[in-house]
């Protein structure tokens, strides 16, 4: 672990900064202290038992967990707390929805080409095992092609798994139409939607959408990591992917993580308390950030604008400017963002979402993904904009490509 010293040096190499603005909410989140405060007693002194045990600490845990499940289920319009299964994260929720649905069946699985990797990779694994996978194309703004979807769903189709809002470019999919299109093509298909980037930011109702399975993430609404949920419409059968003695969660064995679940509930509460206020606040910050960055020359917006775009998402390509270098340059100023550049990926391929919307490698190479939250201020955004200009300039100045 010699290289850990490198990392320590590298962290030290960051000096004092005027301000820290964390916009990399796609990949993780610092927990707001109001959420942490709510969780604290559950770690050490409250409801710390196993919810299946017949003693006070167990009953308290049971009450706490079922209350949270009921609360979250109501927010998405479900019927009962039993429809919600807490998991350890969005990836597990999506794997559970996908692997747990197809089980012994066989046939075709339909996804969109711009879905998150925790949909595309489980499906790819099933493809290797003999399932047929159709990846429906998206248009240049990331919207799924409904005609192609209608054609993709045939009588052999067992599952459609797709996302409600694109996690990289913020495209709000026509999710009601997606479900209608699929049901018309084949009413027996199980429909799974990953709503992790929609929950708390756009309003929806599972009954209205008529979806069978729906994933929700906690950290994506500023709740703790390590917890997420899969909504399973009553009557829909899903097989567990982890086996063990089950407690309150029919599809997840293991000791329920009461403090994290409490945090997930609290974050949900805060996101929905003044939903419209929160959303318009985010949208304002988003547009301020977007406008400021697009005023830099040679930039491209990735994804749609206005109401068709998630209120928190900003994704912009800076041409002639490699993205990973830019994330590092910005880090030195306390601004934390991520990039879809091939240089940031283990396999050195650019973001599959940017590829799916038809972006050239060059555009992906300079792409930066950011998300704003209600915890950000316009001062934060102003600071970010101040930092971006010189950062982009410095990285661009190193590049030989502008003259080519």
């Amino acid at each position, binding site marked *: 672990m010699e290289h850990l010293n490198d990392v320590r040096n590298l962290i030290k*190499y960051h000096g004092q900064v005027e301000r820290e603005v964390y916009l990399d909410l796609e990949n993780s989140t610092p927990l707001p202290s109001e959420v942490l405060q709510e969780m604290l007693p559950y770690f050490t002194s409250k409801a710390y038992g196993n919810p299946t045990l017949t003693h006070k600490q167990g009953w308290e845990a049971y009450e706490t967990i079922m209350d949270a499940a009921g609360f979250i289920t109501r927010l998405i319009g479900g019927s009962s707390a039993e429809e919600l299964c807490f998991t350890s994260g969005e990836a597990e929720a999506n794997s559970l929805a996908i692997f747990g649905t197809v089980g012994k069946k066989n046939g075709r699985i339909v996804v969109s080409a711009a879905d998150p990797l925790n949909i595309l990779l489980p499906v790819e694994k099933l493809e290797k095992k003999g399932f047929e996978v159709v990846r429906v194309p998206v248009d240049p703004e990331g919207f799924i092609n409904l005609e192609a979807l209608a054609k993709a769903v045939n009588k052999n189709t067992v599952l459609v798994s797709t996302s409600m809002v694109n996690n990289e470019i913020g495209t709000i999919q026509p999710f009601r139409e997606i479900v209608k299109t699929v049901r018309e093509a084949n009413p027996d298909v199980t429909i799974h939607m990953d709503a992790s980037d929609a929950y708390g930011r756009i309003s929806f109702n599972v009954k209205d959408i008529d979806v069978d399975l729906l994933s929700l993430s906690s950290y994506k609404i500023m709740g703790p990591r390590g917890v997420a949920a899969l909504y399973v419409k009553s009557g829909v059968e899903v097989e567990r992917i982890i086996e063990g003695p089950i407690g309150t969660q029919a599809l997840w064995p293991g000791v329920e993580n009461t403090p994290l679940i409490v945090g997930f509930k609290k974050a949900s509460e805060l996101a929905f308390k003044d939903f419209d206020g929160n959303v318009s606040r985010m949208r304002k910050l988003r547009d301020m950030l977007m406008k400021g960055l697009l005023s830099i020359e040679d930039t491209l917006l990735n994804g749609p604008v206005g109401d068709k775009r998630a209120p928190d998402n900003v994704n912009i390509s800076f041409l002639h400017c*490699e993205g990973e270098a830019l994330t590092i340059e910005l880090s030195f100023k306390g601004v934390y963002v991520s990039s879809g550049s091939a240089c940031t990926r283990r*396999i050195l391929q650019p973001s599959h979402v940017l590829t799916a919307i038809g972006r050239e490698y060059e555009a992906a190479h300079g792409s930066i993904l950011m998300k704003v939250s209600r915890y950000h201020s316009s001062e934060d955004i102003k600071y970010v904009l101040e930092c971006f200009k010189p950062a982009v300039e410095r990285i661009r100045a190193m590049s030989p490509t502008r003259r080519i």
Partner: protein
Amino acid sequence: MSRSPLPYSRKILELFRNPKNLGRMEDATVSATAGSPACGDMIAFYLKIDENTVITRASFESYGCAANIATASMLTEMVEGKKLEEAWRIGWKDVANEVGGLPAVKFHCGVLAVGALRRAIREFFRRKGFKPEWMPEKETFEEKQALEEEELSKIISQRLTLGGGEK
């Protein structure tokens, strides 16, 4: 497909922040590029070479990651004052060592820098119209990689695939 943790060395960050010999050299004796913007990474290498085939100045430009910038910068420092023969002998591992090591996924960035340098040296002799003895006929690993930068990502991705069929 996934992100890779990048525990860069402090030296890499230093060179990233304060690169040496950065920029186009208008009066270069010879220059070469490796990679291309269409496939992602790209590097340009400039050499000023005197009558004794000694590199008197070197500079670079980079459209790549911090490792790319740092290794290119380091390489310009390493070759300065060296005869072309000596400069040719610098391999990507030497550069990687000088910058304090590279994360596995970033080996190719160092390779690209050396590839560009060797291309420039070959170009120098091509123009002179002769091939010195110490210069192999066949392309070296670094040059081949540079040539095949378009396909490099695939090669690297296969090499780096961790047990379990990651895509």
